[in-house]
């Protein structure tokens, strides 16, 4: 570039860490304020999804086998964790694109990673109460006792983060609002019906089980379940690797999509 003139003396951009932290905090405040009418509703929808699923499955069995009860009760909270990121952000961004406000938000002077992490924080806070309630509903319904280990913290944080990053990847990567909505809904169907989240992978046809070895949803359930019922799930290290790889890949897509300028 050509230096046209020396930068003026008033040029005092704060140091990057300070700027990042400030951007994170203020973007989180922005998200909470702009979504305050929707976040409580979203929490309720997630409770309905989780607790409803837990009770609904119970209606299929006169006497649910213990292992099935464990699968359902520990799978339903995972569905909550995935859904909040995967559904909400793409719908929100699709709406912003249609209203034309997307570009206003993209032009705000907040580091992209700070804005993404702010949204993750808000999504996590929205999902946690439903996750706990869904889990309690399962325990009450099936008289289960869990042995919760500290590994529940990284498992829940990573599962929610990966869902949020996948949602952001769809939201920012797919510029057609309708297409973005369809993709996120399709992913939710895959999670609910075609991934071993609420049932063992062995129940799936062989080929689908192998596909799910590389999809994130079954692995998300595995890492969370292993932290709630020690010894119940196997292949845990591999599952962590698969989920983390999806998080990393999604983050790359988000970075690419937000850096892309038409």
């Amino acid at each position, binding site marked *: 570039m050509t230096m046209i003139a*020396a*930068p003026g003396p008033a040029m005092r*951009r*704060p140091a990057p860490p300070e700027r990042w932290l400030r951007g994170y905090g203020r973007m989180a405040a922005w998200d909470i304020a702009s979504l305050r009418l929707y976040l409580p509703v979203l929490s309720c929808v997630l409770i309905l999804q989780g607790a409803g699923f837990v009770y609904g499955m119970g209606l299929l069995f006169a006497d649910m086998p213990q292992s099935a009860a464990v699968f359902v009760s520990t799978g339903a909270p995972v569905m909550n964790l995935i859904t909040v990121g995967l559904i909400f952000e793409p719908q929100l961004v699709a709406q912003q694109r249609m209203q034309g*406000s997307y570009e*206003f938000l993209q*032009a705000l002077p907040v580091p992209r990673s700070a804005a993404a992490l702010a949204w993750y924080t808000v999504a996590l806070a929205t999902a946690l109460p439903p996750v706990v309630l869904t889990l309690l509903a399962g325990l009450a319904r099936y008289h289960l006792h869990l042995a919760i280990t500290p590994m529940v913290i990284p498992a829940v944080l990573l599962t929610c983060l990966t869902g949020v990053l996948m949602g952001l990847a769809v939201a920012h990567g797919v510029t057609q609002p309708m297409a973005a909505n369809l993709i996120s809904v399709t992913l939710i169907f895959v999670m609910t019906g075609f991934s071993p989240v609420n049932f063992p992978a062995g129940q799936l046809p062989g080929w689908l089980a192998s596909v799910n070895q590389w999809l994130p949803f079954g692995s998300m359930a595995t890492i969370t379940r292993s932290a709630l019922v020690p010894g119940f799930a196997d292949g845990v290290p591999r599952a962590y690797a698969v989920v983390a790889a999806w998080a990393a890949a999604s983050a790359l897509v988000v970075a690419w999509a937000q850096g892309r300028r*038409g």
Partner: protein
Amino acid sequence: MGTTGPVTGNRDDGWTFRARAVTKVYANGVRANDGISLHVAPGEVYGLLGPNGAGKTTLVKQVIGLLKPTSGQISLGGHDLLADPAAARQLCSYLPQAQVPIDSFRAREAIVLCGRVRGGKRAEVEKRADELIEALDLGEWRGKRGIGLSGGVKRLVGFAMVTVCPGRLVILDEPTNDVDPLRRRMLWQQVRELGDRGIAVLLVTHNVLEAEKAVDRVAIIDNGRLLAEGTPSAMKAADRGHLRLQLMIAPGRDAPQAPPFARRARLAGRTLMAVLDEPDAPDGIKWAQEAVASGVAEEYALGATSLEDAYIELTGHASGHEDAGRR
């Protein structure tokens, strides 16, 4: 916080905005900007005038990093905004042509939050927000949620949001859309004050008559090209000593031939605009009265020439009329 915090006082020529030979060809082949070069000094309000589809929004989106030019350079002071879009977002504040997303915010809250996101300190931002609410006469809506606000009020809130804590360059894409005439004047006043505080303002509009009063310099853009640039009075200089006769054609009637003594005339939508020498004014009035009497025209107006005449001459469009830039 000097960059996104309020900029005060002395003009600092180190912060001149420059676009050089900016060309943007969209993927579909539309050449929306074609070698546009311009600069805006700190403290200067620079109007970008042109009909719809001229390429104004395309140009400003490239400044803020939402679009990438096919070729050309864009800089602010010593910062290359194309190479560093994060710096562009920090140094510039941008009011897009579309509405701002404030449905669930209360008006004052939206302004304060935006100032905070832009890096302002709470007390300063709140004080400035109250000043802007006062200056734009938004008091009755300060506590109302965005979802219940009319388009014009939302527009003003959006203006306050992006200027409560302005950057070195403020970009306003059609800020007066939907705003009532009284508050438009207040808004222009605030735009003027931004300039007086040493901020460079890039103002996009197709309302030439209003912009004339608010801007220091204007550029007229059409079909992606910068057709003319200068102070409003320099642009009007060619028409000194002339008058403008406007004849509003009646619906369903064909426009009459311009009077033979007109220096020039153009049909812009349903309005025939003729430029006359001052001594020809009585003949012009007589000619227009006859057109009205015969039912060809509904009414006429005779007035001083304005920037709009230069604009029409260059673009063939009238501004601020129902037909503004229809294409």
